[in-house]
């Protein structure tokens, strides 16, 4: 019998982290008869930029746009699954799912993964059945709320208080005998969105490169000066429904 010196086996631990964080910021603002959904296009991991153009804002239907932020792989997969469910809905009901129903669908889909969540913050924007502009914001496990505006992602803490001030007029007292407007005109909203992203780009390393702003106009509403905006292209497919546009802009690349 031979004695072989066996080194004592040390306990070993292995770990796999299924998540990562890809930076960027998204933002949506609802108007009276329009909705604006925007996001930057930088995708990063740590200090490295993976790509300068990775869209985070996706068209779902003729009147719904979904912006996703957080873990890009989860975001893309989630959008894919939402689109699949919307297609099944079209086959079953021969019409697009209404916005509020899409919002509830997203909640259900997110909560279904309560214990292995999609690591994504979602903002859904579009036009409600009554023709009003709407924004729905979600947390990764499906808590959601309809709001007038919302910022999410890496620079949300920079942008949200600015929006509180400029959209909700927080800490501003209206002149005697007047009230603050409940909804802002489209041109004003677009300037705020652009300002928000230029500010976020200036102070946050994970924000920059490109900006995509989706604009959804309610049925029969005027362009409201949208045609004068540079970098605009129309995505509308029908000629009697909501109109959808995208504005593509450059942001600083440093």
């Amino acid at each position, binding site marked *: 019998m031979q004695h072989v010196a066996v080194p004592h086996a040390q306990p070993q631990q292995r770990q796999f982290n299924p998540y990562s964080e890809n930076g960027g910021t998204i933002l949506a603002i609802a108007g009276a008869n329009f909705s604006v959904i925007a996001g930057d296009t930088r995708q990063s991991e740590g200090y490295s930029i993976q790509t300068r153009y990775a869209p985070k804002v996706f068209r779902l239907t003729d009147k719904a746009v979904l912006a996703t932020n957080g873990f890009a792989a989860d975001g893309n997969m989630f959008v894919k699954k939402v689109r699949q469910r919307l297609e099944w809905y079209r086959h079953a009901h021969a019409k697009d799912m209404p916005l509020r129903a899409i919002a509830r669908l997203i909640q259900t889909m997110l909560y279904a993964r309560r214990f292995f969540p999609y690591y994504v913050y979602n903002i859904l924007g579009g036009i409600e059945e009554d023709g009003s502009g709407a924004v729905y914001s979600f947390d990764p496990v499906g808590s959601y709320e309809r709001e007038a505006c919302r910022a999410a992602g890496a620079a949300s803490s*920079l942008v949200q*208080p600015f929006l*509180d*001030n400029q959209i909700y007029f927080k*800490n501003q007292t209206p002149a005697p005998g007047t009230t603050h407007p409940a909804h802002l005109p489209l041109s004003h909203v677009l300037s705020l969105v652009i300002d928000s992203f230029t*500010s976020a780009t*200036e102070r946050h390393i994970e924000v920059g490169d490109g900006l995509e702003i989706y604009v959804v106009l309610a049925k029969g509403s005027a362009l409201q000066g949208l045609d004068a905006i540079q970098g605009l292209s129309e995505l509308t497919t029908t000629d009697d429904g909501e109109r959808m546009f995208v504005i593509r802009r450059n942001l600083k690349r440093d």
Partner: protein
Amino acid sequence: MSIMDQNGGSVIAMVGKDCVAIASDLRLGNQALGVSSNFQKIFPVTDRIYLGLPGLATDVTTLKERFRFRVNMYTIKEEREIEPETFAHLVSSTLYEHRFGPYFCEPVMAGLSKTPSGGYKPFIAATDLIGCLNFAKDFVVAGTASEKLFGVAEGLWEPDLEPEDLFETISQTLMNAVDRDAYSGWGCVVHVLTKDKVITRTLKGRMD
């Protein structure tokens, strides 16, 4: 839980046209519990220099006392008032003395420095907790709401604001930033320094 977030609080300083402004919240907390709604974090150093000290409250008080002592010694030895630039370096070296066991404060300074022609030039600066100076040309922020302050200030600030417009800009920036921060708020105070006077106002805002 970071030691810098123990007591909460935020400070911001901004440059205007021939004027500067510095503002802070008034909260003193113990983690989530609010203890005082009248805790001053901004202190006059001379008639033309104000110093904001957000961070760990015990060090806020200690540093306030320490800077008062060192500025008084400077004034006696030099037989003149300290200039903002000089004071900024005094702050920096005082903090760096404690490089490996720092005071947990991030000072923010605002002042008007004398020019050779006899006028006054706006001056702002901030340092980190070990005294790394940041001489910004527009605005500086520090404290638990610093990210929010950066975001709002970057959106609202513009060059060459007159004293009253600068007051409005810094007030709106501070209030909207601290309203999104659980550790800052509970009242605000703003100082606007011009060549011939200092305007100090306490703001009426949300108290939650």
